[in-house]
């Protein structure tokens, strides 16, 4: 079989087909993520959730979409019309185009050449992801500001502060991965995890934790949904939006979730990689290789359609796991206070990420100096170091003071010392006993 990358007219057709299939697939996943959220939340609360439209409620997203199209579009009289209409688009587009650089499966062999299962294998990879995920904040801020509504405005302000803060921790947690791979393309990140023999979630466990937490904050999901805190801000930045514009915000939120889940899967759970070396494939000096032999010569990859399908299933399973985690956490944890979010971002996540970069960098340096080969042993050594770091981080954060928040923690401590609260407790207990 000719293992050359696809070119010419078939390449154009393949690119078009990939665009349609992947973006169509992402939109379908987004639609069903809304259903999954409602169903899972219902299950968690011992309810059943929407189960009326179609079998098991599977057509509910269609009904929701139809409803949103038919509803009245409202435009607040004092809103800035141009930016009010622009904002949903500005949120929607970045959340979806980010998916373009994520490889979703092993390369697919066709009679005309090998098709990479990625829309755009751009050389800047993860930088493209970071650039577009930071663009999303403009839509949120614009939406809140253009609405000319104080709640929407507050939501927009919170969103900007929160997303800018956590972008720092997000970016810094990725740096550990970049140091491991030595490249920013996501295809190479998958390849390096295949070569390491283990997924980066283990050798970079602390970065994984920091990335997951930052990604939750970046996507404005609970417990970090300050921008749309219902009990305080109505629904925050999209308070004034209705019908399809509201739906655009909704789709973008779930689009962000899907993209962030796919990113977590790609960066830390090996992307489309499945255990074993049978599915490894990477473009190396114009050849599609499956690995290196002992003497350094390349072993050619054997791409087949069933490998592509299996790895696609693996990628979908990993992404689905993170989506479920998003929903599961949303319906478990209460919302942070705003100062707690900021304190966690700047006083815990940022220093930890910086220290961890030093730690990982030092460990990589030492391992390279010792001449340890890039492989399972290398991974195990890093796993041990990261495990200690993760344990120390959890031990430190698990003292109760860390989440209490910036000024509130200090004030609360003083208060407890001055007010004799403790002595009144036995009296209450006595009273209770009399009542019984």
């Amino acid at each position, binding site marked *: 079989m000719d293992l050359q990358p696809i070119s010419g007219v078939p390449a154009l057709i393949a690119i078009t087909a990939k665009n349609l299939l992947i973006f169509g697939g992402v939109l379908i996943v987004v639609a069903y993520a809304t259903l999954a959220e409602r169903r899972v939340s219902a299950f968690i609360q*011992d309810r059943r959730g929407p189960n009326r439209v179609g079998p098991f409620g599977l057509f509910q997203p269609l009904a929701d979409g139809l409803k949103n199209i038919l509803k009245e579009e409202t435009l607040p009289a004092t809103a800035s019309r141009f930016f009010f209409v622009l904002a949903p688009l500005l949120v929607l587009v970045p959340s979806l185009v980010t998916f373009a650089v994520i490889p979703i499966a092993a390369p697919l062999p066709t009679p005309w050449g090998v098709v990479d299962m990625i829309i755009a294998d751009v050389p800047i990879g993860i930088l493209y992801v970071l650039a577009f995920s930071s663009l999303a904040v403009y839509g949120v801020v614009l939406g809140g500001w253009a609405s000319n509504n104080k709640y929407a405005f507050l939501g927009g302000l919170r969103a900007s502060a929160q997303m800018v803060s956590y972008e720092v921790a997000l970016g810094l947690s990725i740096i550990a991965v970049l140091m491991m791979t030595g490249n920013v393309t996501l295809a190479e990140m998958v390849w390096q995890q295949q070569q390491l023999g283990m997924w980066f979630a283990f050798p970079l466990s602390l970065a994984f934790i920091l990335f997951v937490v930052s990604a939750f904050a970046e996507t404005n999901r609970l417990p970090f949904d300050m921008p749309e805190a219902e009990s305080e801000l109505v629904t925050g930045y999209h308070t004034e939006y209705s019908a399809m514009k509201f739906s655009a915000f909704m789709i973008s939120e779930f689009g962000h979730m899907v993209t962030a889940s796919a990113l977590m899967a790609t960066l830390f759970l090996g992307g489309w990689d499945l255990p074993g070396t049978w599915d490894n494939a990477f473009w190396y000096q114009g050849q599609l290789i499956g690995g290196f032999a002992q003497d350094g010569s390349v072993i050619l990859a054997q791409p087949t359609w069933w490998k592509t399908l299996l790895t696609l299933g693996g990628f979908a399973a990993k992404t689905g796991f993170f989506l479920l985690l998003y929903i599961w*956490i949303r319906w478990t944890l209460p919302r942070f206070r705003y100062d707690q979010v900021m304190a966690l971002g700047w006083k815990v996540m940022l220093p930890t990420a910086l220290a961890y970069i030093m730690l990982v960098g030092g460990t990589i340096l030492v391992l390279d100096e010792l001449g340890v080969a890039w492989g399972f042993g290398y991974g195990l050594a890093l796993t041990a170091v990261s495990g200690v770091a993760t344990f120390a981080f959890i031990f430190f954060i698990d003292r109760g003071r860390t989440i209490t928040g910036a000024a509130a923690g200090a004030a609360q401590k003083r208060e407890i010392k001055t007010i004799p609260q403790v002595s009144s407790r036995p009296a209450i207990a006595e009273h*209770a006993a009399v009542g019984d």
Partner: protein
Amino acid sequence: MTISVKVMHRPEPESTSYLRAALSGMALTFKHMVNPTKVTQQYPEEQTDLHPRWRGTHVMERHADGRPKCVACGLCPTVCPANCIRLVGGEDDQGNRYPIVYEIDEFRCIFCGMCQEVCPVEAIHVGRHFENAEYTRERFVYDLDRLMDQDHPSTLLWDPSDPQSE
């Protein structure tokens, strides 16, 4: 009756742990997520068991030959606190009284059940029924034929000699 008091202790800041509390919360929600017993009642398919003394829309009992049991004595429109029963009585050749017009406005009715209590011949009853939706307001004035055609069970009266019973 004693009131039991549950004293809630605010956790000390030094002894609380967000992470452990979060993880135990996740475990709890996961248990509920996979738990197959759900509290939701699938309403149109699963019907509620109405209480035997549930008071809903009225039922007029009839004789075996199809005539209403009502003797047009006029007690129910008199006792009705909502004044929702309209009764015009008549008399046939044998001197039997019967209702010419018997209408109950179910919108005005407060479902107190006093019409059933007061009825000397056990003709008018309130019923164990609640699905009364209609498209027009006029349809909520039930005439005699409609009252006789109601096929839901009628309400069980409270028995003063057995006050604890259902």
